């Protein structure tokens, strides 16, 4: 029996009827066509599917769509605002923090959540804060640098 869910995704309201067992990530990808969020492991261990629900990072491969009913979801498609890239997106490009790009949306969302909580993290805090996400291409070196760049930019902006 299908259930009706109402979810705000990237600022837009969607009302859809879904099977109660449908995973949030499949709802985003297959029902709404927002394929930026990727599936890597289906066990909430690789972090490729990370999105924000009400501003907190969540692995959407182990959440049901019905659990997002009435809530606000942000995916990588919603990170840029008014056509301007988010500082994390800029930093990932500047620092060569992605290669194949498959884990990147998840890293961007996890890093956003990290910086929202800790605007000025140390390298060790960044590494620890991103341990829920796996990248097989970069060895994390440049991802750490990118998060540092984004943090510095935000601090400077806030301070200036």
């Amino acid at each position, binding site marked *: 029996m299908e259930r009706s869910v109402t979810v705000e995704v990237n600022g837009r309201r969607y009302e859809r009827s879904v099977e109660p067992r449908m995973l949030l990530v499949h709802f985003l990808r297959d029902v709404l066509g927002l394929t930026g969020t990727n599936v890597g492991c289906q066990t909430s261990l690789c972090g490729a599917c990370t999105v924000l629900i009400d501003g907190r990072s969540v692995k959407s491969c182990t959440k049901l769509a019905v659990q997002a009913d009435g809530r606000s979801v942000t995916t990588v498609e919603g990170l840029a605002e008014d056509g301007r890239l988010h500082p994390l997106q800029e930093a990932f490009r500047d620092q060569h923090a992605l290669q194949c790009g498959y884990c990147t949306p998840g890293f961007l969302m996890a890093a956003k959540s990290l910086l929202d909580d800790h605007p000025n993290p140390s*390298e060790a805090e960044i590494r620890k804060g991103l341990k829920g996400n796996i990248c097989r291409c970069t060895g994390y*070196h440049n991802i750490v640098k990118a998060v540092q760049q984004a943090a510095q930019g935000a601090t400077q902006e806030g301070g200036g």
Partner: protein
Amino acid sequence: MGVLGTSVKRREDAALITGKGKYTDDLQVPDMTYAVIVRSPHAHARIRRIDVSKAAAAPGVVAVFTGRDLRNEDRGGVVPTAWLLPDIKTPDHPILATEVVRYVGDGVAVVVAESRYAAADAAELVEVDYEPLPVVVDPEKAAAEGAPLVHEGAPGNVAFDWSLGDEGKTDAAFANAAHTVSATLRNNRMLPFAIEPRACLAEWDEGKGALTLHMTSQNPHVHRLLMSLASIGLPEHKIRVIAPEVGGGFGSKIHHYPDEAITAWCSMRTGRPVKWTATRSETNLTDAHGRDHVTRAEIALDGEGRILGLRVRTHAAMGAYLSTFAPAVPTYLYGTLLSGQYDIPAIHVRVIATFTHTAPVDAVRGAGRPEATFVVERMVDLAAHELGLDPAEIRRRNFVPADAFPYQTQVALQYDSGDYGPALEKALQIAGYDELRAEQARRRADGSGKQLGIGLSTYIEACGLAPSQVVGSLGAQAGLWESAKVRVHPTGTITVYTGSSAHGQGHHTTFSQIVADRLSIPVESVDVVHGDTEEVQFGMGTYGSRSAAVGGSAIAVSVDKVIAKGRKIAAHLLEAAEGDVEFVEGEFRVKGSPDRNRSWGDVVLQAYLAHNLPEGLEAGLEETTFYNPSNFTYPFGAHVAVVEVDPATGVVELARYIAVDDCGNQINPMIVAGQVHGGIAYGVGQALFEHAVYDEGGQLVTAELMDYALPKAHHLPSFELDHTVTPCPHNPLGVKGIGEAGTIASPAAVVNAVVDALAPHGITHLDMPLTPEKVWRALQTQDRHQEEGS
């Protein structure tokens, strides 16, 4: 100063950081269905009966097929092996097993349904009656007498028995040696673990009799060729293979698997588009795995620590079937690398490749070369330990001297260029080697707390396999050239069609740089098309660190041909002799009279207007090259790992990692560094964390991330990189290859470091991965022995 050698930001990234990049599973087409493959839970069993009736009647199911349904009488239904060796056994590999399953994950049926969920539900309803049979999973035990047979046609489970080098000369070297050291080295099986699982979308067009297949591929033309010849049987021009964005490969997306053929057959049988996407555990069960060697190695030295001989005998697991390029990996990509950076006068290697009831083994990042480097670099360290020499010193004493190039090894390769000493000295200097040794001594004297270990790995890599005549004589059923078409549009912008097929390497950026540099035009004026058999002429794809050296060189040659034709046109327009016209800074000039010139844009436009071309010259400006290199390229380098080992817990922390690599000229240093970072992490994963473990019954007990540990951000330090530059002497760009260097060097560096830290406890070797439990247990055992002995 041209754009070559500068860190141009990646042109790929705009789509990938905004979620707009389209990977295979992102694709949706009208009327699309979903396939789920039913797989064997047994490692070895006879199929008594398959009953699909309940599955076929389940809601949303479009069709259910078994192996007998997915082939025509005269064609299709098997996946081939594309590298053959003398006396090799190549048993049939049906795309779906009909009589016997040979590993957990072997496909037996496929369900096609209207949704992912309906297909998965119905797959549970396929009833298969199995008669379990005995199992063997270890490559050495598989060769033992009485081991269960994987294939009746392969006695002793031997797929091939291969040797290289002079056995008599090697025996003589050992007979005259002052010192010999031997060891048994197990090279742990790895999952390739691209974060994107394998997937494909097949669309059969009944009207055209043609198939379009989007798939996770590192080499679309190779996939099309193998499907045409063996698994599908359609004429090649009726198959279009497209690799959209590909989420990492590491070798696993080179090979032709049954799955894309099954999906294609499903679309041909149902007349509807069919998408198949592996689950994580499914891709881990069925991707071709890497490594899995058991090696007995012996090294012979004189009294001064100079290597006299190396003798290697390896059992290499092939898994249940011979995967696409599997036979090349433990032979021509392994045995040939056993001279390392050293002048070794006698080497003999024998490789016994065995079938096992496991997933097939094939190329995974590095492919044979990490295994070879591990053997050489561990044996050199063991020898240093035996002789009481510093690991750096024994290497210095044995390097191929800089004036000895080109250097002919005892294992077939001729190294084109190299200068190994400076890279090692640079790495030691960055590491602060002497201070590290002093700190190590302090901690040892102290006796408590974390112990310091320093490990070296001075590696050689052979990449860009070539030339085609040679690889043909070694067994390749393909040439290993690369193609490039450079199409100049009438307004002077350019589209490059390359047979390389990037999946994260940044070719759009680096290949644009090659063109922009040669023509003095902006990088933005160049676009690169790859990964589509209908758009690209032909291509061998991206693997083995070949794309810059072979694919990039093909582009460079095509650009030079474009310039040559442009010069003819310019000379005609300038009323000058062709030989007097040069192409400088983006314009064609008469030598000595720079104001007599025609701009690039003008000459290009004239080529298309064709109002006034030299007699006999065709209109248009577009050139194609099939570049066939004259040799491999030989990148090299020196890596230093610094570890801290806690004897109380066995935890190994990688404290620092220094890499000095020489990949010749660098097209884009930012991308080179990125490749090194990722390569190091991949090898550190093998050394410290990763192990694909089969139990005795053939179950892969590490099929999920819960049980298979990958390196995460907090496991690794920031890496300290530097480089030397020894240009490749035989390609137009002087480039070598860098995609695998880190993975080749780092397992040996890390293990050497950990063993170095544990040396006071009498530990001389530990097999990877060096988990806390393994290190702790070794310490307990050794310390007990030492206590008992004292």
